[in-house]
């Protein structure tokens, strides 16, 4: 059975994009090199657009490519590049496989113009007034990223953890367990709602989500109305068999009026494939009146029930693995707390944003909360915010020093961010970016309350902005030097007091440059001798 060339191309390309994009989020072992992220995500429309708005350089040209592609060929982005769109194609395909042949059909429907253009209009208007909130909520790439991070990745990691613990019993350590950080339930709300909505809509109505809710779809649809290549029906050749309409997941082929609504068409080429008479074409101009030889080829392949069962099994297995993995992680027994719980709360004036994010304003304005940096961070310090940035900033990453601390030599988040919310930094420059300042609360410190040595904070401090100074007898107590502090949070993370830390990092509204740590020459007592002092 012959499948249309363009459809094959679309399927191959779309699966390629879906898989590589998903891997970026699911790469829990962080194997993918930093430099690949930009290449892979360069064509994601909203991130590229936001990045361009910051850098004003053509290095963020991806959105332009998408625009040009749309003017030439229609919504190629929606069919082959947008991961949320392709995910829906997969669901739609699976759900059609499960149905009888007759129920598999799509039918033409009216466009929900008021809804889709209102959402687009409000999103754009909000953007013009400086709010990226709706974009954050509705950008399909970012939504897909969140679905990966908060729903699929825990399953993958859970499976890994089960396998790792089985292998571990045989002294094989090639797999290792990975912790699944606890995230506030509210963070799951948006990606969860989008996941349910897209799954349901795509399983029942194909690309309905993309043509009602998605602002990127609506916007690219406007361009597609005037694209060079468009789908047209040859009225003379058409037998009104409606096979094209039945195959159209955008419900945009109206055979009564022999029209195709190109604004809703996601250029999947399924209609070309469905037509036995070559009556629907994807051409630059209106097709000539001459009728092609009808090609009598059978239509879409019949679905097999088996495929669905396999996916159901995989889903069940994944869920079980996730639960088992989660159970293993959360089985941690509580340890005795400090004898005297600390009572002075950490008073953080500002949350800490990632290095290279310029300011809280810049960061929150450009971040669409795709959560890629959260997945890429090797220290687990980047966590989705709850209300640290206000309600509109929920899910945007924040430096959570209870979860981890910023690794001194690491610039991974700055390398992977596709929107320019976190700008690329050279490692040497990153070591001087002051994200916040350490604040020491003497009254909470173990050295003060228990009169025993601790020094965990100074131990972890990479610049010695936190260092120990003589206190009483043999005791030493922390002291901070602001100008060399970069606010990496190592001190706060290491501090053992509970529930409140005796040293914490107060974020900076606008990031600045710290001084370089001092380096003085050192004398070695034993360097010149070869003797043993015993």
């Amino acid at each position: 059975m012959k499948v249309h060339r363009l459809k094959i191309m679309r399927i191959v390309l779309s699966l390629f994009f879906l898989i590589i994009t998903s891997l970026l989020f699911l790469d829990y072992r962080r194997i993918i090199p930093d430099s690949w992220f930009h290449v892979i995500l360069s064509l994601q429309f909203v991130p590229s657009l936001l990045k361009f708005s910051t850098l004003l350089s053509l290095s963020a040209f991806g959105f332009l490519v998408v625009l040009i592609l749309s003017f030439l060929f229609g919504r190629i982005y929606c069919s082959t590049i947008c991961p949320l769109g392709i995910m829906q194609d997969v669901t739609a395909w699976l759900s059609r496989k499960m149905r009888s042949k007759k129920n598999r059909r799509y039918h033409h429907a009216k466009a929900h113009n008021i809804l889709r253009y209102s959402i687009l209009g409000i999103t754009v208007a909000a953007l013009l007034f400086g709010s990226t909130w709706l974009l954050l909520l509705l950008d399909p790439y970012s939504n897909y990223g969140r679905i990966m991070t908060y729903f699929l990745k825990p399953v993958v990691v859970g499976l890994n953890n089960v396998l790792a613990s089985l292998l571990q019993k045989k002294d094989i350590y090639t797999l290792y367990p990975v912790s699944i950080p606890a995230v506030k339930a509210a963070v799951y709300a948006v990606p969860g709602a989008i996941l349910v909505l897209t799954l349901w809509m795509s399983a029942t109505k194909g690309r309905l989500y993309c043509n009602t809710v998605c602002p990127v779809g609506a916007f690219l649809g406007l361009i597609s109305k005037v694209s060079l290549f468009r789908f047209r029906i040859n009225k003379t050749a058409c037998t009104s068999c409606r096979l094209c309409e039945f195959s159209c997941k955008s419900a945009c082929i109206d055979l009564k009026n022999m029209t195709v609504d190109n604004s809703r068409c996601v250029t999947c080429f399924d209609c070309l494939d469905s037509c036995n008479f070559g009556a629907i074409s994807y051409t630059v101009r209106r097709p000539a009146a001459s009728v092609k030889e009808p090609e009598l080829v059978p239509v879409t392949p019949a679905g097999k029930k088996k495929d669905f069962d396999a996916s159901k099994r995989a889903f069940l297995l994944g869920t079980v693995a996730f639960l088992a993995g989660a159970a293993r992680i959360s089985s941690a027994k509580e340890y005795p707390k400090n004898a005297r719980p600390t009572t002075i709360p950490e008073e953080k004036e500002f949350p800490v944003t990632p290095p290279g994010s310029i300011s809280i304003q810049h960061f929150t304005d450009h971040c669409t909360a795709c959560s890629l940096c959260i997945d890429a961070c090797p220290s687990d310090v980047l966590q989705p915010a709850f209300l640290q940035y206000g309600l509109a900033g929920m899910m945007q990453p924040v430096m959570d020093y209870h979860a981890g601390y910023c690794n001194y030599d690491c610039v991974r988040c700055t390398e992977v961010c596709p929107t320019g919310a976190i700008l690329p930094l050279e490692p040497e420059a990153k070591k001087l970016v002051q994200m916040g300042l350490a604040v020491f609360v003497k009254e909470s410190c173990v050295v003060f309350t228990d009169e025993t040595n601790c020094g965990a904070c100074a131990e972890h401090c990479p610049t010695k902005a936190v260092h120990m100074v003589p206190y009483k007898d043999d005791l030493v107590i922390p002291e901070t030097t602001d100008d060399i502090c970069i606010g990496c949070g190592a001190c706060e993370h290491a501090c053992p007091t509970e529930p409140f830390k005796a040293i914490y990092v107060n974020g900076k509204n606008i990031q600045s440059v710290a001084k370089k740590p001092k380096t003085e020459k050192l004398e070695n007592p034993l360097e010149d001798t070869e003797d043993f002092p015993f």
Partner: protein
Amino acid sequence: MKRRDFFLRTAGAGLGLSAVASLGGLHPLMARPAMAAAADMAAVRGGEPNVMFDRAIAAMGGMGRFVKKGQKVVIKPNIGWDVPPDRAANTNPLLVKRIVEHCFNAGAKEVLVFDNTCDAWTKCYRTSGIEKYVREAGGKVVPGNTEGYYQEVEIKNGKKLKSAKVHELYLEADVIIDVPVLKNHESTKLTIAMKNLMGVVWDRRYWHRNDLNQCIADFAGFHRRPDLVVVDAYNVMMRHGPRGVSKSDVVNMKAQIVSTDMVAADTAAAKMFGTDPASIRYIRLAQEMGVGTMDLSSLNISRIKI
């Protein structure tokens, strides 16, 4: 492996060995006359880390004294920080590699290396060079990153530390080799062999908030102690420890101390560093608890200059 099994197995191994020894030492390593005069401690200066270890372990009676055929060896270096070897925050990778090789030469079945790191563990393992060097020598690098690897044990003689979650490999191993790097530590003054064992337990914060020095001594008194201690003092971080800020904190001391007694090893290393061992509280406490001796004059020390 359960603790009882462990005792049974070690006891069995011991019986077997004494049987072999009584037969006149069929194995070349057993037959070596140096065995009788093996030093309690070997101190070496002036060589590369691997060369110094070759000399030191020979003086200690060869690796065969500690590792028997078919045994599972766990090496615990310091891999705490995401910094390169010349910063001396982690144990010298060349030394770790050489120890792994010696273990295999002595007939070890498996050699496993791990640390519960401070910085992100995958980065520490890589940047320290230890992952690469251990693999080159045929050893296994094992993660210490998840609580699941750690098992709760009772610390019988502990004054502050009554129990701890200890990495399962540390509890299962036939032979444990503690390979710390000698360096400055801002709150405990120095970190050497005993302090390095903080990397085999899960909750270090508990130690920090419950009298760190006492906890270090308490864990040193845990019944399962390292069978061999190798103190890396090739490059030594003299200040800003334990992480260090730059290479300017480091001197090239070119020294190494090998011992079976953690307290003695820490005492000798402190002296090398130029610090009075008695001024380091956990060393004093450990001696008081009978973990080992600070009296180096009571030991048969082999001093080697290269």
